[in-house]
């Protein structure tokens, strides 16, 4: 199974892997959702959607469908 932002638990972090470029909206990249950057999950709303993350200093909330597209490298110590 691929490990994505949607699989993080509260407070967990991961590093963004290369992703299929055409699926992610450009806006996310512009906010710092770039390969190599760190993502921290801050809060998940009930029903697991939306997901509130801190990526590269930007605090944003995105929907689960999008979060599932952002593949992560777990940070050592987790998983």
């Amino acid at each position: 199974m691929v490990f994505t932002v949607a699989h993080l638990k509260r407070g967990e972090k991961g590093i963004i892997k290369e992703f299929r470029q055409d699926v992610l909206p450009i806006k996310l990249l512009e906010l710092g959702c770039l390969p190599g950057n760190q993502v921290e999950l801050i809060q998940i709303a009930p029903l697991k959607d939306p997901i509130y993350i801190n990526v590269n200093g930007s605090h944003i909330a995105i929907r689960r469908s999008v979060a599932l597209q952002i593949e992560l490298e777990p940070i050592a110590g987790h998983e």
Partner: protein
Amino acid sequence: MSKDIKVALIGNPNTGKTSVFNTLTGLKQKVGNYPGITVEKKIGLCKLSRGVKAHILDLPGTYSLNTTSLDESVAVELLLNKNAPDFPDVAVVVSDVENLKRNLLLFTQIKDLKIPSILAINMADRMDYKGISLDIPKMEKLLNTKIALLSTRKNTGIEELKTLIEKYKELPKSENLDISVIDPSYFKRLKNAFPGEDLYKLWVVITQDVNFTPLDKKDIQSQSPFEIKSGAELKRLQHKETILRYQYINGILKETYSVDRQAAKGWRAGLDKILTHKIFGYLIFFVILLTIFQAIYDWSSVPMDFIDEQFAAASEWVKNTLPPGVFTNLIAEGVVAGIGGIVIFIPQIAFLFFFIAILEESGYMSRVVFLMDRLMRPFGLSGKSVVPLISGTACAIPAVMATRNIENWKERLITILVVPFTTCSARLPVYLIIIALVIPEGRLMGLSYQALTLMSLYLLGFAASILAAKVLHQILKVRSRSFFMVEMPNYKWPLWKNVFYTVVEKTKSFVYGAGKIILAISIVLWFLGSNGFSDEFKNAEQIVTERVAQEGLSPNSQAFVSNKLEEFTATMPMNITADGSLTPSAAVQDSLSILQADLRTRVINQEIASYRLEHSFIGKMGKFIEPVVRPLGYDWKIGIAVLTSFAAREVFVGTLATIYSVGNDEEETIKNRMSAEVKADGQPLFNLASGVSLMLFYAFAMQCMSTLAIVKRETNSWKWPLLQLGFMTIIAYLTALTAYQLLS
């Protein structure tokens, strides 16, 4: 020699552009800590030294030149059109010191368009708090620009910014990056196809539509015949561009920007834990709403009573000062009372705007969006629809505008269509007066019945909008792309200056807007009420006098006269005994008969007046629509008030005041007047059944021309506002009908 300078404030959402605008121009407008508060451009004037004037343009925030929603495209379209009258001489890129990296992305793009740019780094007051330090001179050199470090909160750095604006001609115009490296051969072909055009600008124009729903966008694309790449390919290049820019920015920031994590403090984490909690988050949201409505009701009662008294006194004064007549009645009872009927709601409306401004300023609104998004989606709405729905409780017009940051066209359209169901402040006057008439006083668990009724009406408004959204979601077939993202800004202590100006400005425009309509409508109504063409109207005096001579006074008038006489006899003998029986009893008898004669003329005059009213133009119109409104429990007078309310709801009270004053010369408040109205069978006209029916009608009907006009503008077609008008009015009629028939 002075030349005016055109300055555009551009930047990411929520970086303080509007605050800078306010500080520079002194011309205040709404500021809020919710991304997307400014949805349209605004212009203000700023005086620089030596008589130079700067026209400052405040624009909606955008994360980059690749727009994904309507509010963002406002700024980009301006920058791409060199011939636009607003095209800036200089761009001030306002950025937030805490998010500098992301803010610089937009800055480098604007710089690459070769527009002279100043980097304004705002929120400098947060630097110590967050442990941030900057090397400004070095950054200026690396970015090849001029930087102003400022704080609108602490009012520092503004003068420096003004000086930089004044000397805009000295700004370096060169670009930051050479964009063509992302695909050299493509850019080379581009250059050959459009010689003399700026390459980066071409690129931005070509990619404009890639991320955007084609439906809500004017077509920039049409002028560019050079599109040989597919959307996916272009998007790939855009990704490349973004990565390139971030590499560049990271390189610069490494040398000039540092954060001491040890020193960084903040409430964000702690507050977020509670405010976005699965259970407490919703609980807190609900309690906040409850508090707001209870406060609106409780805190405003004192100032409202005061205003009521003042207007009653004013109308009395007019009556006593001007020569008596119908025209004086119009001023005293129609205009003054009508305006009073609006002014009295200033306290409540101001409180409402005050609370909404605080929610936006503090950063809480984004948390609400986060909490509500999933819950709203089954109804075809987005979490972002919650903000328009809440600010719709103040007024639907700004609420419809506030939908512009919803990226998904279908979600946005549905939000626009259902926003007018929320209880806007124009409904308050109607609700409050009817609640006062038909809902008994008394308390349930510390909350008054009247406040509870009002609260239920608000909930009903929300419920109606949600349900309507659900239905529209099922039936509307609209193609749209979906991407949702909301920024969660830092929590901020509200800038009271901003809150204050918001409240003043919004309240003022409400009162003026409503005041004008009321004035116009009361004059028209007065004219229609005091003119007529039928014989009955012209001969009213004769007809009524004859009828009274034959049949005597009407039961109503008789009751009125005997009431007054009783009152008089009840007080009279007491006075005499107090005087020591010096007044002969014959005098009492005398004054009694004088009074009786007096009262008789008065009621006859009144009967003539109301007979005339019934046969005037307005009476005819009222009678004409009466069959339609009778099943709802209204008489023709209320029918007229409901009809005029289709211009704007708040004219209801004023309309009734005008109609009643034409047909009546008693000095009384509108409320007393309304409670004294009786039906043909002598029962009060306003009872629980007709009151509830009226409130429901106002809850659902689309009675606001301004909102319809805005919806037309925002959806770019008459189809949607007409649909809205139709379905809302049908729902209103049917529920009011059901309620009246069940309750009576």
